[in-house]
């Protein structure tokens, strides 16, 4: 179509402004899509942190709090669960499996979690994916064995058979080290993109051994100390744990068991459905991501208004161009169509460039993002929703293009063939 050729030639004649306009639109489109992707992936990875677990049980507090410390390793438990309560529900006829969790220690900023081998067997994340070992094995009978999350191993550079000293408490700088009882790395887990990557896993017995000689929250002194060899000989049955993850034989029993746990007379307990608590937690954080999305929408609008300004400013200089076109037979609607094509062309070029920028950005940032934030951005084709957004941007550009088109239409009717500047 000849009008397209004319529009492109005319744009090419003003390529500096045109390129700036295209860049502004491209950046805004790239920002919008990037925010959209990060938003979706954050939500998805958030929701896929834990799956397959029917109930999370902890001391009575808030459901979000329980979820945060038991699954996300954020914050602390207000209280512990007695071992006999754990046993009672672990052996409940409706319960298929139970994973005990004991928290409270750390290693160079990463949380240490005491658990049982049931953890490696039953814990699921994402689409019911099991935990897999990248190398080594799960911990066994020796209490001083540790299995590292992928990020812990890669960030701190630990290999199998390395020796690790754990610290008491969860502060990044801990004053009290369990340096009398070092742990040996026996396994490293594959990357999951969940808090598991940032966790050191030891057995409950190991957790107990660390604190076996502690009194009143302080390590024993002198003769009261128990070294690692002595600890191995002791009965390391824990008295308390922090939380329990339960898997049930049948989903139908979930609410019944939840009620039973919540009404348990032995001690005040709280059982939550992880999916519901995740929703609750996400709705807290959702406002920020919505705000981000709205801001990026406005950035796109700004880009388009920039385009409108550039085209409108050019109209006056181009009256002669319009008059010449009229004199060689272009009708007023041709002139209007030229401007619409121009606006659409700029927006289309901007959108395509924006997509290109997005994919280049993802390609560059993919691995740092994953290792730093556990956020995996796939190099995938735009989703239907993203196509919709892009379509809406182009439609908005068309609508905006109709403003200068209308003005040029009126102008070319009034100017006719004779325009002297």
């Amino acid at each position, binding site marked *: 179509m*000849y009008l397209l050729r*004319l529009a492109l*030639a*005319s744009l*090419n*004649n003003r390529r500096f402004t045109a390129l700036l306009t295209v860049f502004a639109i491209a950046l805004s489109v790239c920002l919008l899509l990037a925010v959209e992707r990060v938003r979706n992936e954050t939500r998805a990875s958030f929701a896929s942190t834990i799956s397959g677990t029917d109930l999370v049980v902890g001391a009575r507090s808030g459901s979000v709090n329980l979820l945060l410390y038991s699954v996300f390793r954020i914050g602390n438990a207000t209280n512990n669960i007695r071992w006999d309560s754990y046993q009672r529900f672990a052996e409940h006829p409706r319960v298929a499996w139970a994973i005990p969790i004991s928290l409270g220690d750390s290693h160079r900023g990463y949380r240490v979690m005491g658990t049982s081998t049931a953890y490696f067997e039953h814990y699921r994340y994402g689409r019911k994916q099991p935990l897999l070992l990248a190398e080594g094995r799960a911990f066994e009978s020796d209490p001083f064995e540790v299995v590292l999350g992928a990020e812990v191993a890669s960030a701190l550079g630990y290999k199998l058979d390395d020796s690790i000293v754990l610290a008491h408490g969860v502060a990044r700088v801990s004053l009290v080290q369990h340096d009398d009882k070092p742990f040996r790395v026996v396994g490293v887990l594959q990357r999951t993109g969940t808090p598991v990557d940032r966790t050191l896993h030891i057995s409950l017995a190991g957790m107990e051994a660390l604190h076996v000689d502690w009194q009143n929250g302080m390590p024993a002194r002198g003769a009261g100390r128990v070294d690692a060899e002595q600890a191995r000989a002791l009965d390391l049955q824990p008295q308390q744990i922090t939380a329990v993850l339960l898997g049930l034989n049948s989903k139908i029993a979930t609410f019944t068991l939840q009620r039973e746990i919540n009404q348990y007379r032995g001690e005040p307990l709280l059982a939550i459905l992880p999916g519901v608590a995740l929703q609750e937690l996400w709705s807290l954080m959702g406002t920020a991501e919505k705000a981000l999305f709205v801001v990026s929408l406005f950035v796109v609008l700004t880009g388009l208004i920039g385009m409108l300004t550039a085209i409108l400013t050019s109209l006056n200089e181009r009256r*002669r*161009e319009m008059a*010449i*076109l*009229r*004199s*060689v*037979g*272009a*009708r*007023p609607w*041709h002139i209007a169509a030229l401007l619409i094509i121009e606006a659409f062309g700029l927006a289309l070029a901007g959108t395509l460039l924006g997509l290109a920028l997005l994919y280049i950005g993802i390609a560059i940032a993919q691995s740092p993002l994953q290792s730093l934030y556990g956020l995996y951005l796939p190099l995938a084709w735009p989703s239907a929703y993203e196509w919709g957004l892009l379509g809406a941007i182009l439609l908005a550009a068309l609508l905006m293009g109709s403003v200068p088109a209308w003005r040029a239409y009126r102008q070319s009717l009034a100017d*006719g*063939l*004779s325009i*002297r*500047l």
Partner: protein
Amino acid sequence: MSAPLLAIDNLGFAWPRQAELLDIPTFRLERGESLFLKGPSGSGKTTLLGLIGGVQKAGRGSIRLLDRDLGSMSAGARDRFRVDHTGYIFQQFNLLPFLSVRENVGLPCHFSPLRAERARKRHGSTDAAAASLLEHLGLPPELFERRADALSIGQQQRVAAARALIGQPELVIADEPTSALDADSREVFLQLLFSECRAAGASLLFVSHDQSLAPLFDRSLSLAELNRATRAVEC
């Protein structure tokens, strides 16, 4: 005898909320004729050319081009009719600076299938037609693919003339096309224009304030004498 190419009868025109600008009882332009129309600026010549081109519509009276009454056509039909049968040359700035010389000449063929068809019939393609016209008008072929704004004013006016003539419109309207040229190139340009109009069988309506050019034409008229409205204003 065949009907004149252009016949204006009892034409009256006024811009909104202004006194009548044109009042032309009668005006004829024959086929193949070259007519010099003297009109100082402000005499309404631009308006008259707009009316003949069908950009504006006459208030009263009739303008008949090729025996068709422009007043009875819709605005779109007038636009189509204009480009099919009329070529324009203006004072200056005739060309789209961002297109090549050859493309500028070919422009009317993109908007008028009739002229494109005629150009093809005679030269094989619109490009060949453009090249042939440009050559006849004395433009060296190495300039054909240059951007139009790389040419001198004199060369640009020749390109404009080629564009007005491509596809053999019956009427060529020239509005002060030589005023930006010096005296020597003015005469050369006019001779070329005459010979090309003759070759294409086109009538030439040439509007200028420069009376010295008048003897070169078949006939000359003064718009001031033709137009009763200006006389009334001037009195």
